[in-house]
């Protein structure tokens, strides 16, 4: 019988939540790597038992862990992320230039076809790749040529946090960086284009429509339509129907269009999910109500999903990598909060239940649909 495995990264370790396809009863495994920050834990689409985890610490730096048995056991692999050549400098908070320096891995995205190939998005922003299961990592330095000297840190650092692989074109990759924007390669990572036309950052940038510098929080796509992208920006929810060539705002009737994650329904490419957050000054849900908003029209028109979610005195945040979907017939939607809850919906968001309530603050949620 098929099932799901939910991979949860938290401030103090990783947790693996498993269930059968009914998604009613859950087994909780963890904490793995107790006491460490797990920015991301993710599985290979080509081999579901192959997992990779980014384990980091302000004291001890970066570790990458790999599992070949679905998270039962782990082994550390190479943790050296060396920029190619002299990476130069980027802008910092006060507008001055600061040398590029590796800090941590935010995102691990395994190849769609090869479990030994994984892309790593790091802070200070760069994209790395391993083709030997993590034994060594090489930068794709062409990304920095996309006006890297003008990129600057978002509030949490200058992180490459989102990686989308185009299932129809192995040479096309989309990434997003805070605060630089969204970028696309069509040649396997050799050269990159900023894809930020249509973004407006009225209070964040001196030129609100600058080519780079926008604080993109997350991107999402449906694998059947990889040219259609959805974006949660610092403020604004947007979509592009031409692979990032031009964006248009689809915030519509959202109570606030600030937020972090965005996700697409597994079987309905025009059904998308966001979690509105009050503002960039108040990183919690508005009005004390935890509400996921769903649009069945690819944006503009949104409905609040509240059944099973706290509707009073709730002041959590949902971080950019902390929402995901499964691909079971009735699409499951999952998200984790900074309050340590992981909520699941087995009916596309109509109703929700907490899988766990008291984990450390959740940094990331990924879901594997198991055969």
């Amino acid at each position, binding site marked *: 019988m098929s099932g799901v495995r939910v991979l949860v990264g938290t401030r103090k370790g990783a947790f693996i939540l498993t269930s059968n396809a009914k998604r009613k009863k859950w087994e909780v495994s963890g904490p793995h790597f107790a*006491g*460490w920050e797990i920015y991301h834990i993710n599985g290979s689409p080509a081999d579901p038992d192959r997992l990779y985890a980014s384990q980091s*610490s*302000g*004291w*001890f*730096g*970066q*570790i990458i862990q790999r599992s070949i048995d679905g998270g039962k056991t782990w082994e*550390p692999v190479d*943790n*050296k*992320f*060396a*920029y190619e050549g002299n990476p130069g400098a980027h802008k910092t908070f006060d507008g001055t230039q600061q040398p590029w*320096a*590796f800090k941590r891995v935010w995102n691990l995205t395994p190849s769609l076809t090869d479990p030994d190939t994984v892309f790593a998005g790091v802070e200070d922003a760069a994209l790395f790749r391993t083709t030997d299961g993590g034994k060594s990592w090489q930068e794709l330095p062409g990304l920095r040529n996309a006006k890297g000297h003008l990129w600057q840190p978002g509030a949490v650092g200058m992180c490459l946090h989102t990686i989308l692989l185009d299932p129809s074109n192995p040479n096309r990759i989309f990434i997003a960086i805070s605060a630089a924007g969204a970028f696309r390669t069509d040649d396997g990572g050799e050269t990159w284009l900023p894809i930020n036309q249509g973004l407006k950052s009225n209070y964040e940038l001196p030129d609100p429509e600058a080519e780079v510098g926008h604080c993109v929080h997350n991107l999402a796509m449906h694998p059947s339509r990889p040219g259609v992208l959805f974006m949660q920006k610092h403020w604004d929810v947007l979509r592009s129907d031409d692979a990032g060539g031009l964006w248009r705002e689809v915030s519509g009737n959202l109570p606030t269009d600030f937020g972090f994650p965005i996700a697409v329904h597994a079987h309905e490419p025009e059904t998308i999910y966001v979690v509105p957050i009050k503002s960039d000054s108040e990183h919690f849900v508005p009005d004390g109500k935890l509400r996921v908003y769903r649009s069945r029209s690819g944006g503009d028109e949104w409905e609040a999903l509240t059944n099973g979610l706290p509707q009073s005195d709730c002041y959590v945040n949902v971080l950019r990598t902390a929402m995901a979907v499964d691909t079971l017939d009735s699409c499951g939607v999952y998200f984790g909060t900074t309050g340590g809850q992981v909520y699941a919906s087995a009916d596309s968001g109509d109703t929700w239940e907490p899988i766990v309530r008291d984990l450390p603050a959740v940094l990331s949620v990924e879901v594997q649909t198991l055969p």
Partner: protein
Amino acid sequence: MIRVVLPFHLQQLANTGREVAIQVDRPVTQRSILDALETRYPVLRGTVRDHATQERRAFIRFFACGEDLSLESMDQPLPESIANGSERFMIVGAMAGG
């Protein structure tokens, strides 16, 4: 043998106890101890010293003989008591965030 004390998380990573004994050629310095430690336990590369700069990570301290040696030169010979194993070389996670 040099006796090196590791903080909890590095013990977990290296799958060791609190104290490890390693062979270090003389002269014994912070750098030669760390080189030997990382050779014996490759998983510790990058956790005590930054990969790129080979500098001590900001929240790591080195204690020995009742002294904080963190700001001493990495290549300065350490006291004989460390070199002969009667004193331990302690790698410590700095107090921060408590």
